């Protein structure tokens, strides 16, 4: 469980239920009252910002369209909610170290009821549509859950909504709050997975693969469906064997009918992120692959190489999980066509297919 060195609380929300819960779950952590989280911007570096926790009011919208479908990329019509910002883990490739560089304090927003009201209004306004909504864009969905208990508010909300499917995306094993809730098949708990060699060298502070697989088993036993994201795919010595063994391990851990979807995504690094990684960590094998700028300006393994990886891994996924939907994240339609032999479905169709799982 993540235990912050200090908890900063905006005075305005001192009495919020989530604040009380955090303080009771981490009674030994010193608490500092502040006027506004924005006064912490620019203080400390990325690493130190991950060791503190700020409890604050979210003053802007919680819900937005996933940005992955922009600039010529195929889209799965995914919506994201921002109940937190930043992450206590420190994956070397994580885009947050650049994206949140000027807004780094690890923050849990303590007014989730406002976010749920936003979502409820949208779901109610479009009862004929199926929505797939995730909380893992600017934060790990579960990393702060042992403190905030947010899932105890999210799961019952979505369990009662026939047209909203919640995805909790994580690299942790912080599932305890989920286990006594009934998701009514409206909540998917997804894990980002990579071969252990990648975890050891690039995913600092995350749970081991063995522990993630064990957590998968436990949430499945508690009635949840799970998702698997092989994203980012990282080429390394023995990558093929690593991903093949990983998929085999998932197949043992998760019954096929409890797997909602799988996805693959190439390692993608913006030029600014590459610079940021070099500044923070120096030269890394992660940066030494044959990556080139793509149509959206992000660097990926050059196309014939990543198509090779996609096809190989897709074959293993299809063999293990024949009927489970598989999609590519942040990839161009031509690459999608090379991997699947057909053009990507229109975003509404793909989104609806996944949301109906």
């Amino acid at each position, binding site marked *: 469980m993540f235990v912050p060195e200090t908890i900063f609380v905006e005075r305005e929300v001192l009495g919020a239920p989530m604040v009380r819960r955090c303080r009771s779950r981490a009674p030994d952590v010193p608490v500092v009252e502040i006027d506004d989280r924005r006064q912490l911007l620019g203080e400390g570096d990325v690493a130190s910002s991950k060791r503190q926790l700020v409890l604050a009011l979210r003053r802007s919208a919680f819900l937005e369209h996933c940005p992955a479908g922009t600039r010529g990329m195929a889209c799965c019509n995914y919506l994201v909610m921002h109940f937190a910002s930043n992450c206590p883990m420190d994956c070397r490739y994580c885009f947050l170290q650049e994206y949140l560089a000027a807004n780094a304090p690890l923050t849990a927003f303590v007014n989730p009821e406002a976010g749920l009201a936003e979502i409820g209004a949208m779901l109610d306004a479009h009862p004929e549509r199926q929505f797939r909504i995730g909380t893992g864009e600017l934060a790990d969905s579960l990393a702060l859950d042992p403190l905030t208990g947010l899932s105890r508010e999210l799961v019952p909300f979505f369990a009662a909504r026939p047209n909203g499917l919640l995805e909790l995306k994580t690299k942790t094993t912080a599932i305890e709050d989920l286990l006594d809730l009934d998701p009514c098949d409206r909540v998917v708990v997804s894990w980002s997975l990579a071969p252990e060699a990648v975890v050891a060298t690039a995913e600092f502070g995350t749970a081991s693969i063995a522990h993630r697989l064990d957590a998968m088993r436990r949430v499945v036993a508690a009635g949840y469906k799970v998702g698997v994201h092989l994203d980012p795919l990282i080429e390394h010595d023995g990558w093929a064997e690593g991903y093949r063994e990983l998929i085999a391990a998932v197949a043992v851990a998760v019954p096929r009918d409890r797997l909602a979807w799988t996805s693959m995504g190439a390692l993608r690094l913006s030029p600014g992120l*590459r610079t940021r990684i*070099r500044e923070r960590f*120096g*030269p*890394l*094998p992660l*940066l*030494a692959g*044959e990556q*080139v*700028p*793509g*149509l959206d300006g992000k660097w990926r393994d*050059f*196309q*014939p*190489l990543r*198509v*090779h990886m996609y*096809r190989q891994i897709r074959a293993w996924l299809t063999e293990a999980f024949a009927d489970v939907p598989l999609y590519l994240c942040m990839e*161009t339609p*031509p*690459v999608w066509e*090379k991997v699947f032999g057909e053009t990507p479905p229109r975003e509404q169709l793909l989104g609806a297919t996944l949301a109906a799982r």
Partner: protein
Amino acid sequence: MLGPPLVSGGDAVASAAITEMIDARTADWSDHECVALGRVVDVLRPSPRHLRDILDWLDDIATRDAGRPGAVLADPGLSRLLAARGSAPDRLKRWKEALRRLRYPRLVAREAEATTLIRGMALGPAARIQLPPALEGGALTVTLTVTSADALAQALARLDTSLRAGDIARLFGLLDEL
């Protein structure tokens, strides 16, 4: 750390940027490695942008090969180009191309294979086939430049010959998968 004599040309701002970049990026380099880099900068006079590429690639190659930037700089092909005649911009271009071959061996090999295939098609001066930059996107650009109907017919006939011989399909195969 390298001293001021490293930069022999360029404006003061670029020189300062280069010195600053080198100081920041070579803090753990040996004296021998710094001298080797200093010679590269002195001879090729890269802009800050080119120098950043060079430093990135040196680090990347060294990391990938579990070696040192100095070992990359000692590559015989790079050393030969550094000693070659020609203008600084021309030598910088060729030296960076050689470094790129070390940095992207599979990509460059695939590009070279495709370029050889295109040359072998003998399309003549009227037709040109261009590869996508870094093979990204998978689309070939075919350009026809003609001044008469006969020239167009001839260019199309040559393309058709390559098409029927399977050369174009082989080209797309090279763009498809490693």
